[in-house]
């Protein structure tokens, strides 16, 4: 069965610093990959998605992610974090014909 791992449960960065959130998946073929963000008490909002083509994808709020097939990874990055980015971030995989499978999430805290 496919799975998604997010090795970092909680990350703290200072405002203005760069950010990288890790995501690894286990799947035989190239899945469709997503990053969602969840603010406290809110539903999940899509940040970006990868289906095919250019392995570096741009999303909303200045986020980007890079698909690396050799490493089965889809890490999320942002060059300069804002205090409003503090939230829970979920990586997800969609296997064609199956369901979305979400990782356990990484909680991001931002220091002023």
């Amino acid at each position, binding site marked *: 069965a496919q799975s998604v791992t997010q090795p970092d449960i909680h990350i703290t960065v200072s405002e203005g610093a760069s950010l990288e959130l890790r995501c690894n998946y286990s799947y035989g073929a190239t899945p469709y990959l*997503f990053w969602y963000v969840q603010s406290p008490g809110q*539903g999940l909002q*899509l940040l970006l*998605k990868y289906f095919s083509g250019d392995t570096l994808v741009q999303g909303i709020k200045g986020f980007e992610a890079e698909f690396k097939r050799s490493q089965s990874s889809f890490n999320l990055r942002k060059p300069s974090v804002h205090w409003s980015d503090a939230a829970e971030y*979920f990586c997800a995989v*969609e296997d064609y014909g*199956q*369901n979305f499978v*979400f990782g356990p*999430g990484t909680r991001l805290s931002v220091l002023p």
Partner: protein
Amino acid sequence: GAGVSQSPRYKVAKRGQDVALRCDPISGHVSLFWYQQALGQGPEFLTYFQNEAQLDKSGLPSDRFFAERPEGSVSTLKIQRTQQEDSAVYLCASSLKDRGVTGELFFGEGSRLTVL
């Protein structure tokens, strides 16, 4: 409506009570999913509807859980004889496309169930 709407936002139930959670998806969306999100965890799949047909209920944890979408729009997730381990946020998501056609999921804000 403009987004996925869920009600109630918060529900407290005594153990053994039945609860019903409602989801109103984005108009015209074919696919509807229910997820369960335990505290500090990612969402876990419960069930999937394509229009009014429940095509996958493999994630429902027990026969106490039941979901329906009779007219292919609003869906209700019912939990009978609630137990403490049912305490979680129940998320509804809809998609314009059929499952597996790489559709983006649009999520509601969730219904937080607390079973005492």
